[in-house]
């Protein structure tokens, strides 16, 4: 079973013939989805894993509803997000101290998104980048936090964010714009504090 050779569509077709191929789907997306759901919900690791298990089972049941034009990644992000919202509605609480989960890929992505507006390559900021980004995202209201994570960490386009969150594209666009403004405000405040 060589998963790397298969495109998303081919993988889904293979799963429909042999369930074992579903492991290819899970292996391909579990790390990204874990990071996204962890940042989106702020739930502890075990609960995020439970959400992912529920989400993958849902995805398997709904395989025939997969539409290639929306992309497998976005489809799975949407299912995982909806599963997370269901769990949050059941009263599951966020971590006491929420910390945004990043890796080098998502941090690079974040820096690229802010490169024109802010020098995040500055030595001090580089050292403290993880903490700074974490605080900036934590400071955002939930409505901005969700799109900020998808845009600045997961590098999703407006259309993809719209497909994942089921929000209209123009709403996503304004939410991303405002969340960026809020993050820049936060950086400026931090910078001003440091210079004083």
């Amino acid at each position, binding site marked *: 079973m060589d998963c790397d050779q298969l495109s998303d569509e081919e993988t889904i077709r293979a799963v429909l013939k042999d369930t074992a191929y579903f492991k290819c789907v899970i292996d391909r997306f579990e790390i990204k989805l874990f990071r996204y759901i962890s940042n989106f919900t702020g739930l502890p690791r075990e609960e995020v894993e439970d959400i992912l298990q529920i989400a993958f089972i849902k995805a398997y049941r709904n395989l*025939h509803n997969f539409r290639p*034009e929306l992309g497998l990644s976005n489809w799975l992000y949407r299912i995982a997000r909806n599963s997370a919202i269901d769990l949050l509605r059941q009263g599951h609480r966020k971590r006491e101290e929420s910390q945004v989960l990043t890796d080098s890929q998502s941090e690079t992505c974040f820096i690229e998104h802010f490169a024109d507006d802010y020098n995040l390559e500055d030595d001090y900021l580089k050292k403290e980048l993880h903490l700074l980004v974490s605080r900036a995202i934590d400071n955002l209201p939930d409505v901005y936090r969700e799109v900020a994570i998808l845009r600045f960490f997961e590098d999703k386009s407006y259309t993809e964010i719209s497909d994942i969150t089921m929000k209209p594209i123009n709403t996503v666009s304004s939410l991303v714009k405002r969340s960026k403004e809020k993050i820049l405000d936060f950086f400026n405040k931090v910078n001003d504090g440091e210079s004083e």
Partner: protein
Amino acid sequence: MKDLGDRVLSQIDRDKIEPIPRSHFLLKFFLKWLVISIAVCLGSVAIGIILFHIGHLDHELLSFYARSLWKFFLIMFPLFWTVVVVLATSFAIVKFRELPKGHRYHPLQLLLAYLLLIGILGAGLNQLGLSDYLDQKISGHLPAYESWERKKIVIWNRPDLGLLAGKIFSLESDHQFILTDMLGKNWPVNHSQAIWRGRLHPREGILIKLSGKVEGDLFIAKEVRPWKGRGARSKKSRCHGSQEQILECIKGRH
């Protein structure tokens, strides 16, 4: 995390989970489009009939209802069709947003697109004269439905406000005739100072509408017009057949 794939696969195996059949999703997809199509058809008919009602509003009546304008609008307002438009719009937008890419559009964009579509289709129906036809058909099938004709009778059957409509029963003299109103009551009408519109002249059996005033049992007419629509704008009779049949048709619905 390492065993997530194994956990998921073993749960699928243990619980004998199967993918939901494609037909289930196809049926849901088809039903959504069906609801959207019905909503567009209903919305178009509703807009067509609303346009027909607005187009045939007797603006001159406003002066007679000056003291109770709210009553006039309450009678003439196409409430039924407005409710239909609101409901059809809601269903269309909700179902469109449930389509695979429907969520990408803002509800306001969908609202404008939907209203534009039913506006064009409704105007087309009205131009083709189908709004009038549908108004009548629905009136025949829904006893509680207030068709334009019925509203017109209510509006014109107000001698206290100086409005009267019915059929000329008999010509009494050069200046007076007996009119049978829409409720079957006979009125002596003096028309010595009346203006006859629409190339009308006093003749037994014709359906007319009058404005004027009541003096005792006598109605003094100031203006006499044909019952059908608004003169030149009325293209078709809404009740077909002979004058008697037309009167019966109108009375029957009242």
